[in-house]
């Protein structure tokens, strides 16, 4: 038996440790732990509900637009506002640009270095394993695309900024749609950038992903997890266009069912919190932290649907909408992500074709004295929910369940591991001195620990940890 701790897991957003037990070259147990705490939910109490749109974006610098979307939807739900279709098109274009930025960066800057050898002579590009299998010519082509991709992910943020003021942390997404208007000039600018990004995705990124898949074929059988998939839906239920991507659905035991948000809970059995009940619904009070809690090992809570762990993200969406059914594995997640990037580019184009320039969707809004609302939407990494209560016209409760909280969730009383943990357990490790499989599996979920550990904490010292002197 050997205990392996990988800390930090690099090429993700935020700080994460993996604590794995390996026996007979097989992972027999694994825990995913998030190691960064700020306390956004507590910070939001007492603030103006409008400010939540800009405030919550700062939870995460790689998916900030995601939080502006969920926050805006929560406000619209609380205020009883139905945005115009033009407003929805515009802000969904911003949202789509964030998918493109993320997927391109995740595939080349975060995933590819696990499988291709980056140029020597640069400390940043040195690895601690030698499992590189691509012939030199193919390897070097992907290396070239690693650097080329910087242009296209940057251009995706440029598109986002055309409608959203700036990126990261946009100023565009707001109640009703976006703050500004689309002009003919902006639409042309967006089309031109989109065309180049789409060509890069289709001609370089997707073929590169298949090249890697060809040489690391066993990763189609590694990192499956439960096979429970969930989506809150996105780019869906437009009045004229219908659903361009996916509706709120869940998949378990081979069946797809309509999602009922009332059956979402969070559990804190293995997380450093205490409350009257270990399981609660999102509108209930946020539990109090307790870092001395026996058996707790993570600040990430355990979101559950009908009491079960679910995987969220591109593979879940592509599976639920019926466009990708090859399998559920490390490599399938990667392929679903790059294929989704092309699909998102097409969705943005459809939305652009339906945008009417020069329409302002903004009004003067009034905060209700007491209200509550939820904003549930699928974002780059998966299902994101913001739940908000307003009392005396200020925020009295703000609850956030992020995609990475689903994927990196801890165990509940039933001792069921989170989806990421489940995907690691049972994996055969070729070289236990260099367990490269672990990082590859966990990165296929595109974890974002900045998001997952946004929670309020107030605890004491973790007993078992010492600080380096």
């Amino acid at each position, binding site marked *: 038996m050997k205990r392996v701790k*990988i*800390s*930090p897991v*690099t*090429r*993700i*957003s*935020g*700080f994460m*440790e993996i604590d794995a037990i390996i026996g007979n070259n097989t992972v027999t147990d694994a825990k995913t732990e998030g190691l960064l*705490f*700020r*306390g956004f939910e507590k*910070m939001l109490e007492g603030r103006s509900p*409008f*400010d939540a749109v*800009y*405030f919550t974006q*700062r*939870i*995460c*610098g*790689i998916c*900030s637009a995601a939080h502006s979307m969920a926050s805006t939807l929560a406000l619209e739900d609380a205020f009883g506002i139905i945005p115009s279709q033009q407003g929805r098109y515009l802000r969904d274009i911003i949202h789509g640009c964030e998918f493109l930025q993320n997927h391109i*960066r995740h595939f080349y800057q975060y995933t590819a270095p696990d499988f291709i050898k980056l*140029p020597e002579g*640069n*400390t*940043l*590009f*040195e*690895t*601690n394993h030698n499992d590189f299998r691509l012939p030199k010519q193919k390897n070097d082509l992907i290396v070239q695309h690693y650097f080329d991709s*910087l*242009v296209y*992910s*940057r251009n995706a*943020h*440029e598109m986002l*900024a055309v409608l*959203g*003021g*700036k*990126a*990261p*942390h946009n*100023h565009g997404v*707001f109640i009703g749609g976006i*703050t500004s*208007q689309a002009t003919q000039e902006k639409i042309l600018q967006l089309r031109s950038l989109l065309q180049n990004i789409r060509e890069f995705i289709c001609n370089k990124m997707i073929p590169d992903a298949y090249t890697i898949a060809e040489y690391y074929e066993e990763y189609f059988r590694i990192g499956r997890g439960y096979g429970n998939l969930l989506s809150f839906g996105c780019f869906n239920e437009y009045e004229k266009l219908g659903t361009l991507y996916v509706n709120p659905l869940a998949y378990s035991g081979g069946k797809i069912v309509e999602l009922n948000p009332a059956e979402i809970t969070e559990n804190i059995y293995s997380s450093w919190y205490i409350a009257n009940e270990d399981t609660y619904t999102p509108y209930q009070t946020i539990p109090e932290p307790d870092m001395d809690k026996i058996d707790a090992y993570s600040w990430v809570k355990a979101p559950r649907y009908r009491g079960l762990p679910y995987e969220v993200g591109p593979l879940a969406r592509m599976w639920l909408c019926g466009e990708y059914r090859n399998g559920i594995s490390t490599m399938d997640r990667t392929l679903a992500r790059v294929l989704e990037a092309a699909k998102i580019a097409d969705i943005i184009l459809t939305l652009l074709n339906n945008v009417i320039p020069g329409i*302002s969707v*903004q009004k003067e809004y009034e905060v209700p004295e007491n209200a509550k609302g939820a904003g549930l939407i699928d974002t780059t990494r998966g299902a994101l929910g913001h739940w908000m209560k307003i009392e005396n016209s200020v925020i009295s409760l703000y609850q956030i369940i992020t995609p990475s909280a689903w994927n990196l969730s801890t165990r509940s009383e039933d001792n069921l591991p989170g989806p990421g943990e489940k995907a690691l357990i049972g994996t055969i490790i070729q070289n236990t001195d260099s367990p490269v499989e672990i*990082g590859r599996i966990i990165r296929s979920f595109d974890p974002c620990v*900045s998001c997952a550990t946004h929670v309020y*904490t107030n*605890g004491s010292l973790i007993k078992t*940890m*010492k*600080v*380096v002197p």
Partner: protein
Amino acid sequence: MNEKISICPNFYTRLETTSLLVHKVIDSVKQNKIKKRNLIWFELTGCSGNIISLLDGANPDFKSLATQMVNFIYDNSLMAAEGEDAMEKLFSVIDDDYILAVEGAVSTKNNGLYNIIGRWRGQPVTAYDAIKKFGEKAAYVIAVGTCASDGGISAARPNPAQCVGIQSLLNKKVIKLPGCPCHPDWFMGTLAYIMLFGEPELDSRQRPIMLYSTLIHDICPRRKYFDSGIFASKLGEKTCMFKIGCRGPVTRVDCPVRKWNEGVNWPIEDDSPCIGCAMFGFPDKMEPFISYDTT
């Protein structure tokens, strides 16, 4: 490039300053006039949005930085190595020459255990510990973004993790580049200046004067509406947004001319108010960001 608005031409010269400096560094490195410096980039208690913003840079881009300007030693988001091996690379330069760039504040609660950035030789290394160890020994320390500069949103009321800006933990001067996030040009220009000439001239809040000397309000293209008393009552209007919460009148930074993401836009041109993200006291002292009570 930016649409030219009729203000002092000196501004456009300044706009190009950062790229001129960076290219001068690249040329000087090629000609062996100056040496590449080691660069460590810490993502501490924050959202890692500043490293993403740096990747958005095009003036020149990240590849030029990593391959032609510096020996990029460590960054959580981008380095190929992981686990203790990554931490070994970090610690391998601690007694060497390096420039330290830090994004994120530092959580001081529970001896810093609210933010562990990795393990080194079996023990957890906190953000607090990392900044103490590497900050004191660095040739220069650059606070990238508002959290590292002044605590920023990580230190927002009631500051559950007891976050502070990095200067309050260090006995040496920190060069501050506030902004949420930091514009890639602000970082690249400052780094290039340091490599060529050493510490740039700083204002009383330790910000480089070449980037932070101008009030947004003074060069705002909507200033004429303010002067004429024509104010927007909601987002989306093209007039002065002072009454719905614009913090341009107190925020010093060059957004109106530099703009964002290759100069395509900036918040005020997007018909939404400046929320003062580059200002000391953001977010608490800059709120409410949006207000419809314009009386």
